[in-house]
């Protein structure tokens, strides 16, 4: 009959109207500043720099290799290399960035810098409340503002951070093994040299080849 569909539709909206006062589950609205839903684990906004330990400057993983700067499609990264060196996570001496700026007004969140970084030093952040009234200085982040601890990285991307940590630990272990092997070889060589010097002339014993450190 004429009007049947209208009545059916009106009942449906009436059900919604009444139901929204009774059951909270119907309301899908998240009242944002007060309520938040946690961001998805692989959410990404802008990059940040990871540091180990408690001192951001000492623990910074970045070695100023400038790969990210060169790969960045919109060219929003600016790096200046240091003249001196500092030890990295495995104790090896590396140069470090004296300046590392990202202009997040230019950054397009493509994550290419993260993918090319050989040192697991740059990762994507989930912090999105970056509005500022200073559109030049306020959106140009320097290395202090970009530095976030490894613990923070674990808190925002736990799975990925665990994988990275495992990989770095493996690298560190390999590096230590290599160093130990090198030390053993050096000691053996020294001993052999001494023995050779003491004993009769010239029988060359080749030092055992150290295991390949692998790595990058």
């Amino acid at each position: 009959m004429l009007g049947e569909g209208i009545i059916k539709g009106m009942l449906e909206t009436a059900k919604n109207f009444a139901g929204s006062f009774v059951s909270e589950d119907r309301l899908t609205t998240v009242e944002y500043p007060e309520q938040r839903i946690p961001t998805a684990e692989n959410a990404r906004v802008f990059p940040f720099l990871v540091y180990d330990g408690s001192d951001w400057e000492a623990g910074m993983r970045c070695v100023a290799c400038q790969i990210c700067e060169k790969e960045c499609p919109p060219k929003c990264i600016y790096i200046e290399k240091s003249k001196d060196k500092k030890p990295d996570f495995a104790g090896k001496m590396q140069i470090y960035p004296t300046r590392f700026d990202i202009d997040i007004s230019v950054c397009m969140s493509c994550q290419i810098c993260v993918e090319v970084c050989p040192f697991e030093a740059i990762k994507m952040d989930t912090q999105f409340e970056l509005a500022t009234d200073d559109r030049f200085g306020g959106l140009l982040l320097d290395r202090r503002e970009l530095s976030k601890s490894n613990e923070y990285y674990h808190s925002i991307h736990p799975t990925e951070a665990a994988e990275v940590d495992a990989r770095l630990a493996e690298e560190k272990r390999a590096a230590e093994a290599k160093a130990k092997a090198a030390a053993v070889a050096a000691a053996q060589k020294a001993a052999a040299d001494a023995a050779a010097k003491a004993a009769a002339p010239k029988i060359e014993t080749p030092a055992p080849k150290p295991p390949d450190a692998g790595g990058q």
Partner: protein
Amino acid sequence: MASTSAVTGADQIFILLRDWLVHLLPSALRPAASVVLGAIAIVAVFPGLFALTTVFERKGLGRMQNRLGPNRVGPYGFFQPIADGIKALTKEDVVPFRADAMVHFLAPLVLLVTVFMGFAVLPVGRNMQLVDMDSGLLFFFAMGAATELSVFMAGWSSRNKYSMLGAMRAVAQMISYEVALLLSSVTVVMIAGSLSLTEIVDAQNQYTGIFPHWYIFTPWGLASFLMFSIAATAETNRSPFDLPEGESEIVAGYHTEYSGFKFAIFFVAEYLAMFALSGMGATLFLGGWSAPLKFLGFIPSWIWFFLKVMCAIFIFIWMRGTLPRLRQDQLMNFAWKFALPFTLLNLLVTALWRFMGAGWLRWVVCAAILAGAYVFMGRMGMHRKHIGPRSYRYAE
């Protein structure tokens, strides 16, 4: 003004207040002052109601869509209209370069004035009527028809194809549905025997036992009320008849080129027209300011009137939250192929009711005719030409 129930002080509080204020003035000024006070009351109360309605509408629509609606400005978002008003006032008033600036400026004013004029004859409570005109109903609909002029002024002067299309749609729609609106109101005039809205309310303000003699409780009254409601929805350009501003195809219709406070005036006028027509519907069919049950007569009459208006507004909002917009051809088909014949038939049924005299027989006969016509015309209207798969004569 004669009524059976007791007139309390609370019922007449605004009349007493007005008389007290007027008596502070010299007697030569009193009639004019009385009218001015009444006009001020109308100009203050109905836009206030509009402000409240916008919040209720947005919250109600939100709830129908399982959202919360505005809840940021003030407690539960009730100061939202203040924020909206400030926003509208501080916006730039853009007039298109090639527009007819004078007409463009006048259109919203003409609309607002004609809409407000309709309230002059509306009895919002016992004795609460600005002008008790003998032909109040006629005046009301004359003013309602004048709004079409301003809509066309707005569309024409903007020099914008969307404005023009919107205005043409609006005029076509409003004129088509005005026929149904007027014909469904005429039934009440036939029974009440008067065009005076006071007398129409008085005719309904009687009770059998505790039940009132509202016209909606008769077969012809119910049919008229339904047709009146549909036509009123179309007259006020409300969903599902909001083609004149159909934003999905013609931006915003006739007020595309209006911004800032001129747009706000269009918006206010649309809601005021809703209040005016809701009030008129209540006056004609729902007993105006009379109480729905006899023992509820102690509640002031103006409360009943505004309750009825707000119920009508809620139904407007409810329909907006439910129904999709019609197509232009569906709109016109409904007006001319269903609404017009049905209201014409209803006129005949009303005449039958008038001359059959009291008794149960007229109830049965009138209800049967109307129900039969409704079902039959509904079937006819919903009957579609069946188009089967296409057959080819030569290319088989």
